[in-house]
């Protein structure tokens, strides 16, 4: 097994409840991997273990060959709710990502803030508080903060789940573009099949709890790396989406 992120016989229980079965898996660097599965199946727990926020009950997780033991800025989290700090302006939220970095001086930090404000189209809202901007912008702020922190791996827990359909589509397109441009590894948790197919280079489909891998789908091989919005209307996309849906129904016995 190879990969930048490696699950090595990783299993997790919370007391008597077995949440993740022994799993071995390797995720390539600079790829966008979607963890797909029914609600409560344990996919978020797997992702949290990559973040160092939960500890495996057995086995381990390696990042670049190094064992993950605690959270650090190389693996940044983006959540669905409470994604940006309400008491900080957009600019200061992004700056928060670098607050504890001693390797950057003030000028370098300012440059990075400017870069991410521009990259995410937030420059005009730099002085605004999160309650004055839309939900989509708040998620952009959260992603920008994580990138500004210098994270190699973005761990995204249904980050677009609470957004309206149009904003969600736009952010999906932006996320793919930024992931490629900034050369980041993204683990994206969702139970939305269409979102998974559109975003993923690779979909890992999990069973019901305790989670185990039931399918590993190479989406990039079928849809390519370039994903304009129109790809959602192509036959190839429909076929792949249906294939994933059937897999979920057959393998997990549930409709998501």
């Amino acid at each position: 097994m190879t990969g930048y992120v490696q699950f090595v016989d990783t299993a997790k229980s919370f007391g008597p409840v077995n949440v993740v079965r022994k799993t071995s898996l390797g995720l390539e660097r600079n790829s966008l991997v979607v963890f797909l599965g029914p609600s409560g199946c344990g996919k978020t727990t797997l992702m949290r273990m990559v973040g160092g926020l939960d500890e495996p009950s057995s086995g381990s997780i390696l990042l670049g060959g190094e064992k993950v033991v605690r959270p650090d800025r190389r693996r940044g989290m983006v959540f669905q709710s409470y994604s940006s700090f309400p008491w900080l302006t957009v600019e200061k939220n992004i700056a928060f990502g670098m607050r504890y970095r001693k390797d950057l001086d003030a000028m370098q930090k300012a440059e990075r803030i400017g870069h991410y404000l521009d990259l995410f189209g937030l420059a005009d809202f730099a002085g605004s508080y999160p309650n004055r901007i839309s939900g989509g912008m708040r998620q952009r702020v959260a992603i920008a903060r994580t990138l500004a922190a210098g994270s190699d791996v973005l761990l995204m827990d249904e980050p677009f789940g609470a957004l309206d359909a149009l904003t969600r589509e736009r952010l999906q397109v932006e996320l793919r573009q930024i992931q490629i441009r900034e050369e980041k590894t993204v683990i994206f948790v969702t139970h939305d099949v269409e979102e998974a197919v559109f975003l993923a280079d690779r979909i890992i489909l999990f069973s019901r709890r305790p989670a185990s891998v039931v399918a590993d789908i190479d989406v990039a091989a079928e849809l390519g790396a370039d994903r304009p919005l129109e790809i959602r209307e192509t036959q190839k996309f429909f076929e792949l989406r249906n294939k994933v849906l059937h897999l979920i129904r057959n393998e997990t016995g549930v409709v998501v």
Partner: protein
Amino acid sequence: MSLSDGDSDLFSSLFVFRGRASPLGEFAVSVAAAMLVIALWELAARAGIIAPQFLPSPSRVVVALWTMLTEQNLVWHVAVSTARVWIAFLLAAIMAIPIGIMMSSYRIVGAALEPMIDFIRYLPVPALVPLSIIWFGVGEETKIFLLWLGTFFQLVLLVADDMRRVPQEFVEVARTVGANSRQVMTDVALHWMGPTLLDNLRITLGWCWTYLIIAEIVAADSGIGYVIWTARRFVKTPEVMAGVVVIGLIGLVTDQLLRLLHRRLFRYL
């Protein structure tokens, strides 16, 4: 006389379920409601519906208040009571904020302290007057202690709850950008808690004032509680009412000032 369009806008939202805020309209209603209660009270007193030794008219209370201000050094008594309340309250806050935060942050602290605090919280403060006299004598310490007692044990649990409600997502975001436990506390938790913490301080300051009478009947020779208690012994009901009104007015002004501070400090809400 009919209301102009502007006036009707001012008041119309007040009748709507969860209607828009109308600060001026709400202020006008607050003043009008208070005036109405005072007018009804005055009418009831003048009509002799209630005996004056039980409920003197507002005008007699005002006269008593004026006499207390000009002849009985009321301002001094107010200053003494305010100092006692604020010393006790600040002591309670200085202790309750770190202890409450630690109780929610470290389970060992919570497990050790919470049952004891719950136990003491339910004890009525008057029941502890004899003990406090034995411990601290009849000087200022006892008065401050009784006021502190009524505030600290309530506030510490409110602070612990505030800390418990800091979203785990914020804590985890901070940890993944490199914050240690102390930095999570100072850079995230305290900021998140700020608005509710100030609200809880405002509420418990009000509770601190409610214990004033109990604190100032213990061998006191100053303070509004002492004034009220002395007036009661001679059935000087207008003076008793005047003392109560003064406490109410101090509460009203303090509350409004703290609300203003809240709005200034937490503009992002």
